[in-house]
């Protein structure tokens, strides 16, 4: 992807990139299939009367947030979609760090997601460390947020990923 050098990092921090709209609206079929797959009997998802009283109408399970962005297995005329966490791969390539691991993944839930919502996602680089040496090799840690917003621009969730890109031979740009 883009040739990112160490001098470009400061300009990337906090800037939303790879803005992408989900390819279909949030829908209840997947909600029921997901609840069924884990035998989740929470009446919020099965009983419209409970949903009306508790959540003001049907909502999707919060942990389904990333489901709405996985592309169809096939779609007519589709060009290559950006990889999830494309910034992670941009940093690996741009900083010449061929190996990488992801450690913790945190999801913070905001506005409930409802059937019919059209969600948009963007990736935001939050930080890149100075070169560090760990037992894996020498490299840099970075934190990438994936923000999800609904059609009104309200924040629905933020996923934060911590990655460590490194070289086994010890060099780090």
């Amino acid at each position, binding site marked *: 992807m883009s040739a990112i050098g160490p001098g470009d990092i400061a300009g990337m921090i906090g800037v939303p990139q790879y803005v992408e709209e989900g390819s279909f609206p949030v829908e209840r079929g997947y909600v029921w299939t997901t*609840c069924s797959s884990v035998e989740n009997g*929470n009446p919020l998802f099965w009983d419209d009367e409970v949903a009306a009283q508790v959540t003001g109408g049907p909502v999707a399970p919060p942990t389904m947030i990333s489901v709405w962005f996985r592309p169809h297995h096939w779609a007519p005329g589709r060009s290559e979609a950006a990889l999830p966490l494309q910034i992670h791969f941009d940093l690996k390539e741009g900083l010449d760090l061929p190996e990488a691991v992801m450690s913790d993944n945190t999801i913070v839930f905001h506005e409930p997601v409802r059937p019919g919502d059209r969600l948009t996602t963007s990736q935001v680089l939050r930080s890149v460390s100075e070169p560090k040496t760990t037992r894996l090799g020498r490299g840099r840690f970075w934190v990438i947020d994936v923000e999800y917003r609904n059609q009104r621009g309200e924040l629905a969730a933020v996923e934060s990923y911590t990655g460590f890109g490194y070289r086994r031979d010890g060099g780090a740009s």
Partner: protein
Amino acid sequence: MSTPVRPVLLLADVGVGDALPELAYPVTATTVVLGALAARDWRPMHHDKDFAVERNGTRDIFLNTPNQAAWFERFVTDWTGPFGRLRRMTFRMLGSVFPGDTMVLAGTVTGTGVDETGCGWAALDIVLAVGDETKTTCAAVVALPVAEDDNPWGRRGDRWTP
């Protein structure tokens, strides 16, 4: 007129050290495949055993991460009831869960409080294990009603600070 829905668990019912009801589940190939397709995860290591063995070096297909998140959510809300509203979850994947495994989810309350907006919360440490091997850990914070007439789902904007 419909019957009003009442909270089944209030913040005052919860204390540090409380254990959540354990959940044991025998995982089958159907569990793995259904979970992956429900999450729109078409990657072959979640439905094609030959691929999983030959390309991933695992002994079988295995549960995907988004479906594990759904298992953790179910585990938490089985305990809280519908008024429980997840604030945040942090996962650490340590090993894979395969067909034939009986996975056991166990959780403990590690903290409780009321934030500056008046929203009650409980922090939980949850472990998904197979036998004596921890496969995934999850630290979750869930909002709970502070009174019978409180509803965390009614919070928006500045009143929801997860």
